[in-house]
């Protein structure tokens, strides 16, 4: 059903969670207004829109407010029916949701590997690599360009951050997670993702990302030294890592 209510996205320029919402809207040709939120200086607006978690992204659609990026993707898919993102078959949908969830675990572990040292770094690096192994298994033998087939879908949007954020983290964190020789299918999918016209025109600039993550890494390393891995999340004004279980 076409909807004429105003659409807004409250996001943070380098958050893959808010980018995936923007990608979804752009893929569907839905016009929206973007509102940047500095997550280190949260505004009253964010507290009002997301009192429970005070996190971005937030999708505003008329009077409605949708939260949590993967939940927002499903809302977008159910509201604007053109360019379907989720597969039709319930089993394929369950698999897409499962792998998206795996991608979230990869995110947390890769980020912790970026921000830690010694044993903790080794441990989280190993967990991150294991997650990529699972993704590689899924992509191996696929003849289509994307997880969603010849067109991009929900799972591509959920995992897409891997193609642009992970290489930056690998550089800043002096580590390798997606080795092209070990993970050829993932590497190819990453290239296809980055070359998609909608994605290409909506990526945070790499040089700015390097500076940002260098700074964040330094802050996190010093916080972890003081408060341990869990205490370090306070710097992002989070009580726990995003989607931490």
């Amino acid at each position, binding site marked *: 059903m076409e909807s004429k209510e105003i659409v807004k996205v409250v996001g943070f320029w380098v958050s893959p969670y808010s980018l995936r919402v923007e990608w979804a809207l752009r893929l569907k040709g839905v016009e929206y207004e973007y509102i940047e939120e500095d997550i280190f200086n949260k505004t009253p607006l964010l507290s009002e829109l997301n009192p429970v978690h005070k996190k971005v992204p937030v999708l505003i659609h008329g009077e409605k407010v949708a939260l949590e990026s993967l*939940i*927002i993707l*499903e809302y977008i898919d159910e509201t604007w029916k053109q360019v379907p993102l989720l597969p039709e078959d*319930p*089993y394929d949908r*369950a698999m897409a949701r499962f792998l998206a969830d795996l991608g979230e675990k990869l995110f947390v572990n890769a980020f912790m590997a970026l921000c830690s040292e010694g044993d903790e770094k080794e441990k989280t690096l190993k967990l991150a690599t294991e997650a990529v192994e699972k993704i590689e298994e899924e992509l191996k033998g696929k003849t289509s360009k994307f997880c969603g087939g010849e067109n991009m879908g929900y799972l591509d949007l959920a995992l897409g951050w891997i193609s642009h954020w992970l290489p930056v983290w690998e550089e800043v964190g002096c580590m390798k997670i997606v080795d092209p020789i070990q993970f050829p299918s993932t590497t190819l999918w990453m290239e296809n993702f980055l070359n998609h016209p909608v994605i290409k025109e909506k990526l945070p600039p790499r040089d700015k990302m390097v500076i940002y993550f260098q700074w964040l890494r330094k802050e996190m390393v010093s916080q972890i030294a003081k408060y341990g891995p869990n205490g370090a999340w306070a710097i992002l004004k989070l009580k*726990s890592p995003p989607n931490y*279980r």
Partner: protein
Amino acid sequence: MADSSKVTLLDSWYSPFGMRVRIALAQKEIEYEYKEENLSDKSPLLLQMNPVKKQIPVLIHRGKPVCESLIIVQYIDEVWNQKSPLLPSDPYQRARARFWADFVDQKIYSLGKQVWLSTGEAQEAAKKELLDTFKLLEGELGQKPYFGGETLGFVDVALIPFYTWFSSFEHCGNFTMVEECPKLVAWAHKCMEKESVSKTLPDLKKVFDFLMDFIKKQKANK
């Protein structure tokens, strides 16, 4: 459309995540084979069906596994969509239901464990956050009989299994749910009027004894 292909559930009797799936299957009156898993000696079938996480619950339908309790409940709702819908049909209401079910997932298990296993300030902080979580849920419930409105819905199914853990939180945290969260306790009793819930949830004392034993062993290992 009713699907009559074989359904198998790999589960453990005390798992609130497994209970979610059992309640969903009961709501939809789906016949299935239940296989109890010993998590300290996982079966080859479990390891084959969930190689990624090696966890229960796993639903096996038409020979294919579905993992992660809330993903399984959504799968059940989508395949057996003629009876007792768990998610509403409106996209915005669906987003809200998914949000609150995800909120339950993010908070209760990890905070509950901290209330059980930590002491002093750490335990007090966890207890406060757990109670805040329950109070936020009470706010969302409002005046409705169920989170799903007039009938049991996705959030009810996600949350009600943790009713079996209430007494363990009370015991370890030194509080009573009925004093702190009376609306939630009333909601839990309302859910228990449904056969799909009352016949699924194990005996509360049995779960309490099991958890106390688990907690004792965990603390001894530290």
